[in-house]
């Protein structure tokens, strides 16, 4: 009976050791997988970031081109020149109208 009891104890501590070892391996494996996962993730994020930056750059450049166009098209000298070409002229004689009595009245 005593012998049996000893064996039982031995097998219990052996199982315990086995469980600890397995746990350690599992944890190491987990971290390894995590490391690989994050390495892949950061690499792909880096590529994504580069892609976004490139798009930002294109948008900024386009924005600059549009601003440039806006600056030129809002030039009053150009507008005046264009108006002249289209036949617009400044009023030569301005007539001011004065009315002693109201021309329209709210009843």
């Amino acid at each position, binding site marked *: 009976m005593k012998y049996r009891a000893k064996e039982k104890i031995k097998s219990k501590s052996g199982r315990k050791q086995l469980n600890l070892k397995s746990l350690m391996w599992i944890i190491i494996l987990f971290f390894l997988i995590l490391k690989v996962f994050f390495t892949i993730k950061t690499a792909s994020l*880096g590529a994504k970031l580069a892609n976004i930056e490139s798009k930002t750059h294109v948008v900024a450049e386009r924005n600059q081109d549009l601003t440039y166009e806006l600056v030129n098209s809002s030039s009053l000298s*150009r507008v005046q020149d264009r108006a002249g070409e289209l036949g617009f002229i400044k009023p030569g004689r301005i007539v001011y109208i004065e009315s002693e009595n109201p021309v329209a009245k709210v009843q």
Partner: protein
Amino acid sequence: MINRLKVYSLCLLLSFFILIARLFYWQIYKGKGLSAQARVQYQSGYALLAPRGNILAADSTWLSASGKSWLVYGVPPDLKKGSKKTAETLAPFFVEDEDKTSLLSEIDRINELLSKGGIQWTPLRTKVSDETKQNIEKLNLKGIGFEFQETRIYPEASSGAHLLGFVGKNNEGQDEGYFGLEGFYDKTLTGKPGFITRDSDASGAPIILGAFREMSAIGGVNLLTHIDKTVQLTLDKKLKHGIEKYGALAGSAIVMNPKNGGILGMSSFPSYDPQKYWEYGDQFFNNPTIFSSFEPGSIFKVLIMAAGLDSGVINPDTKCDSCFGPLKIDKYFIETWNNEYYPESTMTDVIVHSDNVGMAYVGQKLGQEKMFDYLNSFGIGQNTGIDLQGEISPKLREKGSWGNIDVATASFGQGVATTPIQMLRAVAAIANKGRIITPQVVDKIIGEGWEEDIKEKDGGRVISEKAANEMTQMMVEAAKKGEAKWTNIGGFKVAGKTGTAQIPIAGHYDEEKTNASFIGFAPYDNPKFIMIVTLQEPSSSPWASETAAPLWYSIAVDLFNYFGIQPDN
């Protein structure tokens, strides 16, 4: 067996030492260099550009803005076509006048740059437009590249060039603003570039968990000015036409809001194109409205008369008891401009007739000390404080050193020197009920998410409101009945004064040459604008009443219409 083991051990030991030595060589001896090489491979960086701020008109449209241009460079070792052929291909893109001489000299210049031995990189042309760059790119020239360069664009071309200034290069090759607003607000307009450095992988993509350093760029802030483009372009057009019509050497005009000192327009000719400033001489860059001093002549009379009214030594109805003929002071005779004399003239008549003798009478009544103090209060002899680079201030004669003749001549604007902006500021005090205001071009400074309002600078009261009103009425009479009455537009409430001043040359006055000017404001009871027009040596007539005055009114007609100022009846 033991010997063999010893040999193996020795070999292992030797290998170990060789390994250690090799490691020492790479890690310690060559370590720094390799580390630097590695850094170059995995670290990338680029500059964050900080564009220069824009200068905006009152309606927030651009007067000056940052634009895009390119530096064209060559990499001689990469040239496939050879330096001569490449130069021949590029030259037509770089010359403005496509005549044979300039084309050949451009080919020689580019060829010389590209064929210099031992050069890896050489700049070929700066400030190349986007369109030219695209045209060159289509040729797919090997060994030719482009680098972004910020440039300055002025959408209204040379309009207001003196007011805006330009952006050139300083001694260190950096962009720097010179003259006008670009010069005065250079530090405000200039941005501070930043940079980013970080670890990158072989494809150049950033490594997220790697080293990263960023210094943000701070863009230059924008300036929102009081400048009204319509007023500015009207001034430019009319002034240019006026100078041609009256055969003047030069001319300038300023329009200001007398209530807050906001400059609505400022123009001078001859002028220059700020985008191509290097094509002009230095003499074109100074702004005549703040840099050129001149003897103001009769427009100065309004300041002396206003001083007399405010001090109480005269009133509008005071009669001049010395206006019957030329006035003798020491060995000099003071005469009227047309040798016509009006005995018993009132002070209003003195201004209407622009009577030098009558003004000498006011000057004598005022006395040299009071005259100096008033002129000082009107800002004569001092900078006006306008926010433009390059303002000068002709000095007034020292207090206490004025002789009788100096007092007399200063009374009608001879023997004293001012700038157009000084005169404008001083007369604006009359329009502004006696309070003097500092002229300002910029209204607001606008950054990203913030703005700072530049408050008007009230210089305090110079003359009483009563004196200002009396002086205004005198100017109204001068505009209606003075020598420029023929050009006055009936019905509009204009207060104005002409000024014809002889030009001092080598200790005496030139008999024929004059500076003609007209200053006035409207409507006189609630002024929307004050304007000064000066013409240098007009040849069609020496008199301001026949040159500067009609020019002033021709501009004013457009301003009346634009500001919605209507006639009285």
